[in-house]
């Protein structure tokens, strides 16, 4: 990645974080809110491949963890694994369908939330699985499907496509 790519990436991380922290945290259904910070590693992995997805997931997760009351580092771990996993899973896909990123975003967000709750339970907070997970899934997963395309386009502006996908740039942007 060039210096310009790093600058654009930094801008994207902070723009998405600002939207989450100032706007989306106020959107409340069943006590839960949309989580755009999970879409960051998903989009980065989808566009840039597993390595870039992991880096964006780690960076975005650390930024989010600074403002969350839960265990510090948990969002970074989930983010880097999620970005890596999405990058690997979508590496060989032909991206000719408009609904593919929407499905990927929804499924990956749900996976990320479940992983977060399981890891939180392992760290001594079992109620994350039994109390918080269902409302979070009910709200954040459909919200991820709705926000997938705009977030993907924003992240694609900052993340260069993975070498294996350079020929598919037109279908992403």
């Amino acid at each position, binding site marked *: 990645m060039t210096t310009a790519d790093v600058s654009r990436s930094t801008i994207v991380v902070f723009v998405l974080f600002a939207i989450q922290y100032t*706007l989306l945290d*106020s959107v409340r259904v069943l*006590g839960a809110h949309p989580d755009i910070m999970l879409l960051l590693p998903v989009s980065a992995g989808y566009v840039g491949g597993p390595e870039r997805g*992991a880096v964006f997931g780690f960076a975005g997760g650390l930024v989010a963890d600074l403002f969350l009351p839960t265990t510090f580092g948990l969002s970074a771990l989930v983010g880097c694994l999620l970005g890596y996993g999405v990058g690997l899973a979508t590496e060989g896909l032909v991206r000719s369908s408009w609904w593919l990123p929407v499905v990927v975003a929804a499924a990956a967000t749900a996976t990320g939330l479940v992983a977060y709750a399981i890891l939180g339970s392992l760290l001594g907070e079992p109620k994350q699985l039994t109390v918080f997970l269902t409302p979070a899934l009910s709200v954040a997963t459909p919200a991820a499907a709705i926000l997938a395309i705009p977030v993907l386009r924003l992240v694609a502006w900052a993340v260069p496509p993975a070498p294996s996908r350079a020929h598919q740039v037109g279908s992403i942007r």
Partner: protein
Amino acid sequence: MARRRRPRRSRRSLTIVLLVLASITIITLDYRGGGHGAISAVKRAAHDTFSPVQRGVDAVVRPIGSFFAGAVHYGALQQQNAKLRAEIGDLERRVLEGSATRQELEQLEQLEHLPWIDGIQTVTGEVVGLNTSNFAATIQLNVGTSSGVDEGMPVVGGAGLVGQVIEAWKSGSTVRLVTDPRFAVSVRFGSPAGYALALGEGVSKALAVQYVAPGASLHRGEVLMTSGLQNASFPSDIPVATITSFSSTPSSTQEAVSAKPVADLPALQYVDVMLWYPGQ
């Protein structure tokens, strides 16, 4: 081709391994409390840096959101307004009726030397954010260390206990609500006093009250107060919740008790932070 793929795959694997190890290290430091001071300092600095941005956006967005919310909920707001007016009238009547009782109680207090929260200094804060995480029940206030607020301080509002401060920075603080599963408070009930532990069970859910002996004398609507036992996390005599249900079976070792928080948590707008430290 195979030779060019191997270095890329190796670098990719190395990247994810390094990031996972870094994440696990950070989690371990926070979990064990080893990096607590450093991590807390970084989080406070982050909050202090971002607070002006949050306030600026909030100042723009809140009136817009309120306009649409008011337009959508106009009918419900009218009904709520009428209901509140009726409640205010009822409360004013009770204040007058309670004044005679209060005078008598003050005299008893002087005899019994009961600790009262009235003697504790408080700072009033406005709720400026809700649940930053989908996995915690918290609120954010616009008062922080510059107003004397610090971690561990109790927060009260409405009719009783709201929660406890868990993070504080210059211009704000985060409060863990009584409904958060990680929240626990020692309570007392009945006369002679029985003691139990009230635990949060999740947003909008009743509190679970544990360590109540089977057959204990309980009543629906009975108010649970903070016990204020030695080295307690909260001063004594703060209303916490009212008992909504209790039951036990012949083989159970404790009564299954549920209690509804007295504070109207969904409608909180202003709260008081008690400038009091646990164990004080």
